């Protein structure tokens, strides 16, 4: 692997891992606050799975540059994170959290299905492993979008509000990183342009079947992973507080 490809791959793995880590943290904020015990457990499971995926992506990066996943997660500042803005938005209500998880799962399942054929074997293996869990996540979140969309007037209103707020942000999932083209050319990662069309087809159909309307104006669409909303700072302040206070945290 030449240096250019290697640097591009490190950047991509970091972005993948950061998305999973920040989304996992937002989901974990529901622990103990879910609308019903069963769903509290289910979302905690999803959060743990996403955290596990983050660990796998940071782990792959580590084999390339020797970085320490714990340091990346707990000792970087917000400006050094490369997650998309969608995952850092505050958890909102149940509809907001489940819609975000659905839009992300739909993207991730597609990305992984393609990435399991990556020419870079370690990435192909991780993708195949994660894909199993993502298929189940997607069934769960898909079911919630449908039930809230077609449920009561209020559940539909909340789901529609979540969609209006998130649709633009979700488009960032398909904005390639600078330099990602070289990875696509090498067959290491899938081309996001092609995936976006499939994602739009699937999500549009499911959202409309769930009694929801796609926003006519997609609103703000972030394009750079160098930029973040103010919410990432407060999220990290909480997530990193223990590690920054006592990095070893061996005695507690």
């Amino acid at each position: 692997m030449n240096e250019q490809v290697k640097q591009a791959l490190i950047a991509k793995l970091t972005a993948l891992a950061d998305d999973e880590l920040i989304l996992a943290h937002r989901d974990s904020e529901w622990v103990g606050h879910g609308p019903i015990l069963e769903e509290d457990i289910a979302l905690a499971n999803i959060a743990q799975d996403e955290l596990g995926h983050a660990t796998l992506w940071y782990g792959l990066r580590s084999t390339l540059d020797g970085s320490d996943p714990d340091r990346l997660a707990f000792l970087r500042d917000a400006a050094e994170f490369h997650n998309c803005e969608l995952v850092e938005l505050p958890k909102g209500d149940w509809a907001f959290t489940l819609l975000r998880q659905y839009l992300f799962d739909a993207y991730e399942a597609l990305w992984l299905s393609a990435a399991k054929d990556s020419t870079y074997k370690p990435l192909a293996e991780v993708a195949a492993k994660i894909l199993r869990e993502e298929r189940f996540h997607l069934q769960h979140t898909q079911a919630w979008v449908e039930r809230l969309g077609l449920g009561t007037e209020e559940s539909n209103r909340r789901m529609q509000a979540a969609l209006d707020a998130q649709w633009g942000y979700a488009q960032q999932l398909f904005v390639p990183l600078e330099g990602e083209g070289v990875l696509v050319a090498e067959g290491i990662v899938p081309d996001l342009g092609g995936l976006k069309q499939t994602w739009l087809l699937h999500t549009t159909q499911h959202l409309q079947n769930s009694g929801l309307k796609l926003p006519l104006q997609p609103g703000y669409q972030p394009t750079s992973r160098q930029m973040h909303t103010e919410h990432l700072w407060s999220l990290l302040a909480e997530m990193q507080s223990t590690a920054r206070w006592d990095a070893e945290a061996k005695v507690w």
Partner: protein
Amino acid sequence: MDTQWPRWEVFKQDTPSKPHQAVGSVHAADPFHALLTARNVFARRPQAVSMWVAPASAILSVTKEELAEGRELKPSTFDLKPSTYYVFRKTSHKRSMTFVDYVGELEAPSPEDALKLAIERFTDAPALAWWVVPASSVTKSEDSPETVESWFAPAKDKTYKQQSYYGLVGAHAGKHKRTQGDDDE
């Protein structure tokens, strides 16, 4: 207005050669939702290959004691068309994690008739309790390899942490207690 979701009994099959066993219940809005939450609550780590759910309200449940005390099993008074019932039975107090095991299905005009038939038919072991469940009320997880893989396979990599893993905490807590004790004196 009752805003509580209905309760569903969950049946889990550990391996293809074992029967489905009642492992507990979940609250859910509809059958598929019940299956999704059942998978999260009962099969995230434990081994499974298949799950069934049935609304608790559809289950006829009778214990050995109730039968001994003369609980009457009313036969159907109408000429009902027979339908399929799944029969579950508890034969031992040994495994406290599960309740009844699936023993077989039969055709009968009513749950009570099905239970009477079951008592005659499934005699290989003494029954402590019976559940009779209309087959039409049971929703099953898909048997497709893709579903089995995504619902149940990841559990193999998710082991429980043994208590000994937390030894460090125990040791520290003990030390902490002793220090506190000294302070008290």
